[in-house]
């Protein structure tokens, strides 16, 4: 089957036969059409798919899903980079099977948000993403939500429950953790004080045992968020540093600029133009941080940066 324009489909499969039935022709048709074909699937599915494709599997790039689907924003960045590498005019077909096992409720919600965001991020592209969902293994909520985040299902039928990405985004926000636990170090944000924030964040990250590279990433992400407070958030705010069992959490809140300047849709989720005068900061924040939640509001914004604690 051939299509033009972006296609994003969920393939809900209950057996190996159903998985192969939905993916082999998809890959074969793509190769025949000169498309780049990338298969990011559960490790157990790689040999299955390879065998079914036979010789043609050499033309397909395989990646184990656990390596690819680490954090939603970074996976999104990875897809963008992959598609950029294959040129603006060549279609990329992706078999993309997200990882749901071992995710907390918060993480699961952010991966659902990611699936919905793909519809926005690649809307103007010619690419075709097919997302297998293993109904034998996945929780019912994950499978049901796939029908809300993919415009098309299985055999190309239109999903009757597909949710507009902006609405789905707001719904995910409503599920974000409301409070962060524990006592926090507080650093006030001042016009000339971004360096003081960087010092405090770096010291906190090192105390918590974050590796040097991730410490730099946290410092850079916190700094860009503070710069946004100074530029867009009225300039007054506070950085709070604390952690829960899984994450170091850096919360940046401001008192708001109380202007009516429009807030960006899907802030930081869409790759900025290299020559744009703005928009790189929040994109970078999301790419450097494991999970970001944000509530941008002219009356006062809150951004939380979650960095996974290093394994003990």
């Amino acid at each position, binding site marked *: 089957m051939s299509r033009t324009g972006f296609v994003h489909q969920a393939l809900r499969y209950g057996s190996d036969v159903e998985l192969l039935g939905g993916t082999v022709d998809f890959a074969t048709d793509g190769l025949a059409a000169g498309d780049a074909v990338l298969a990011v699937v559960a490790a157990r599915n790689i040999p299955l798919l390879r065998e079914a494709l036979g010789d043609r599997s050499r033309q397909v790039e395989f990646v184990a899903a656990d390596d690819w689907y680490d954090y939603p924003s970074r996976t999104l*960045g990875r897809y963008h980079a992959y598609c950029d590498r294959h040129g603006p005019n060549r279609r990329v077909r992706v078999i993309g099977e997200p990882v749901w096992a071992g995710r907390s409720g918060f993480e699961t919600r952010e991966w659902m948000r990611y699936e919905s965001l793909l519809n926005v991020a690649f809307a103007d592209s010619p690419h075709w993403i097919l997302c297998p969902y293993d109904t034998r293994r996945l929780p019912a909520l994950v499978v049901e939500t796939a029908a809300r985040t993919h415009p098309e299902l299985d055999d190309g039928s239109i999903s009757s429950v597909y949710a507009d990405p902006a609405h789905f985004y707001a719904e995910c926000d409503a599920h974000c953790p409301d409070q962060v636990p524990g006592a926090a170090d507080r650093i006030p944000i001042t016009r*000339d004080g*971004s*360096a003081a924030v*960087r010092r405090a964040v770096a010291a906190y990250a090192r105390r918590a045992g974050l590796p040097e*590279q991730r410490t*730099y*990433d946290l*410092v*850079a992400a916190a*700094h*860009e968020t503070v*710069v946004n407070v*100074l530029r867009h958030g009225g300039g007054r705010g506070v950085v709070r540093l604390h952690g829960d069992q899984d994450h170091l959490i850096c919360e940046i809140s401001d008192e708001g600029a109380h202007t009516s300047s429009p807030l960006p849709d899907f802030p930081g989720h869409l*790759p*900025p*133009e*290299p*020559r744009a*005068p703005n928009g*790189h*900061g929040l*994109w*970078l924040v999301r*790419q*450097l941080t494991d999970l970001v939640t944000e509530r941008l509001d002219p009356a006062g914004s809150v951004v939380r940066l979650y960095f996974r604690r290093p394994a003990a």
Partner: protein
Amino acid sequence: MAVSPTRTTVGRMRQGDHLLLGYDTDEERETVLAAFLLDGLACGHRGLLLPPADIPAGVALSFLEAYGCRVDEELAAGRLCVDAHLAQPEGLWDLDEVIRREARRAVGDGYLGLRVATEVLRAQAGRGLKSLHDSELLLDPVFASLPVLGICQYDRRVFDESELAPLAGLHHGRVGADQVWHDDLLSITRTFAPPGLALAGEVDDTNVTAVARALHAERARPHSRTPDGPRTRLDLRDLLFIDVGALRLLVFSALALSAAGGTLVLCGVAPHVQRVMRVAGWDRVPGLRLEPAGPTP
């Protein structure tokens, strides 16, 4: 005498300082010397140049014109002097006497002190640079006792570092050009070989304009016009942090240079900075080139 490898900048010199300038290019020499002599005029000091060759005073000091100095007027008034003493074959022997006499004369003429800049030809330095060593040794009590400060110039294209190191030990340290910018987070210095700027420390929202100003001024340096179009070189090996706003400025500058057929070269960019550039989509900007740091200057 303190034999420490300290390095100061010309604008921080004070009376009694007897410093060594090892320069790589004429631009470097003229930059340091111009600051030294013009600071002297501002401080009420007489400036005395002792060049290694007998050339007319106006020619020897002509590089000051580019800094807005009216050399002929200053020479006529005696605020600047040129003495060909070191152009004589035996000029080194009584250099201490010359400077002692000139310092006293400057005070007698109503100046607050004397700034002296010397340079000798390698041929006059004596076998194994012995006469040079002896001469520098004799100078020390002069600087200790009189209102004088001085720079001894050594062309590093002629004297190699193994020769300069012991000579530097006979001075109070080395002197270099003034920093272009210095604050709690960042210092920007001009490099001469290769020509460009070196950024050390952190660039963020508070000091990005200083970087912009320095980059802009860099376009006016003569070396920035090359056969391959305008070229600006930034040494970033000691850069610890740079934020998105500052990287955006570098990208903008690179695009501007590229539009004129030129290049912005970034040297020694740390891996974590390169990663940020890649993530932001700034790793493939026309006119922006990354190079390894090269040897430590």
